[in-house]
């Protein structure tokens, strides 16, 4: 599994993840409010120009985003039928420029930089008992769990097929889930045994 980041050395790549996210938020809000076809067409043109500035291949970007554009196409079509050409153009321009700008940030920001920025943005949530350390631990474990779970699923499915069982049986998810929950329980014990909780509770006492 590869992250969607596309390496490059443009000014957009060099800008900090936090700055890009903040600008995206402002641009997104502006696009959502705007309702003039020429202005939105200009916004789309700016988005496309930024892709060229970032040295990204537009064709590769379109290919990566094809399912999203198909959904947009569906709603443009529905708008054209129910509300006329102008409304359809507005929908198409709004959604396309929004998706292109948001994806530009994803394509030009490293996964690690983005998670750092998003964790920093979630700092106000620390009051809810979500310390950045625990968020970091959760993030790392979730990424590590993905291939483990894939393997579990494939093993169970291969065993079923070898026994001549129906391939649909795996849709009874219960047994697979209990096996996975047991694995998670052992992992939690391992994390506790290595003293992670101790650090967390000392931190709580300090507060």
């Amino acid at each position, binding site marked *: *599994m590869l992250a*969607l*980041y596309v390496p490059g050395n443009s000014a957009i790549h060099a800008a900090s993840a936090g700055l890009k996210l903040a600008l995206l938020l402002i641009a*997104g809000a502006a696009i*959502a409010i705007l*309702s003039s076809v020429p202005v939105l067409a200009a916004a789309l043109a700016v988005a496309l120009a930024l892709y060229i500035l970032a040295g990204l291949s537009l064709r590769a970007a379109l290919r990566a*985003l094809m399912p*999203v554009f198909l*959904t*947009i196409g*569906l*709603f443009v079509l*529905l*708008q054209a039928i129910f*509300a006329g050409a102008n409304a359809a153009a507005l*929908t198409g321009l*709004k*959604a396309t420029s*929004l*998706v292109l*700008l*948001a*994806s530009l940030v*994803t394509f030009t*920001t490293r*996964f690690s930089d*983005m998670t750092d920025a*998003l964790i920093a943005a979630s700092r106000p949530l620390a009051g809810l*008992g*979500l310390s950045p350390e*625990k968020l970091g*631990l*959760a*993030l790392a*474990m*979730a990424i*590590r*769990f*993905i291939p*483990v*779970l*894939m393997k579990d*699923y494939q093993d169970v499915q291969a065993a079923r097929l070898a026994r001549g069982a129906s391939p*649909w049986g795996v*849709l*009874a*998810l*219960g047994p697979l*889930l*209990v096996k*996975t*929950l*047991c694995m*998670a329980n052992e*992992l*939690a014990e391992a994390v*506790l045994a290595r003293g*992670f*909780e101790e650090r*967390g509770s000392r931190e709580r006492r300090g507060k």
Partner: protein
Amino acid sequence: MSVRDVVLVALFAAIMAVLGLAPKIEVGFIPVPITAQLLGAMLAGSILGALRGAAAMALFLLLVAAGLPVLAGGRGGLGVLAGPSGGFLVGYAVAAFVIGALTERFWRGLTFTKLLAINIFGGIIVLYAIGILGISLLAGVPLKTAAYGSMIFVPGDIVKAVLAAAAGMFVKRGYPLIHDGGDEHQC
């Protein structure tokens, strides 16, 4: 949140990703593949309860936002969250919370039928309300048009609610994690 809770939250965020990566299963007469990730949101709510379920979905959305292609069909990134169906993705967290809260409320004497009703309410009615609102805002489409475009997914999502309710009841019997602390399980 205890370390055990953090591990469970990470686990269900990963289950979401695996549901997106797993090969699609076509179910005969229903036009939509069954692998969609709503199943993961329903499972998280039914098995972990409101807070941990919603946290698992939030963590998954963090992975998506950070640029991992973990949504069904290898999608990911901020572009998908900002796309017309972004409301449904954010809605997963709310759906898991609602399903979890109701599951906790009706935990004693929970039956398959009750859990199915809970999953249909939280995972379809609540989720679609948020998703349709999202389409309307992000694509500038009237609510009615947004609702029309979403209805083709309802049959497949009912199948997911059935699977989630069955799995939820199985886990409740074998490895309950709501109201039981989940500390003294033998594996």
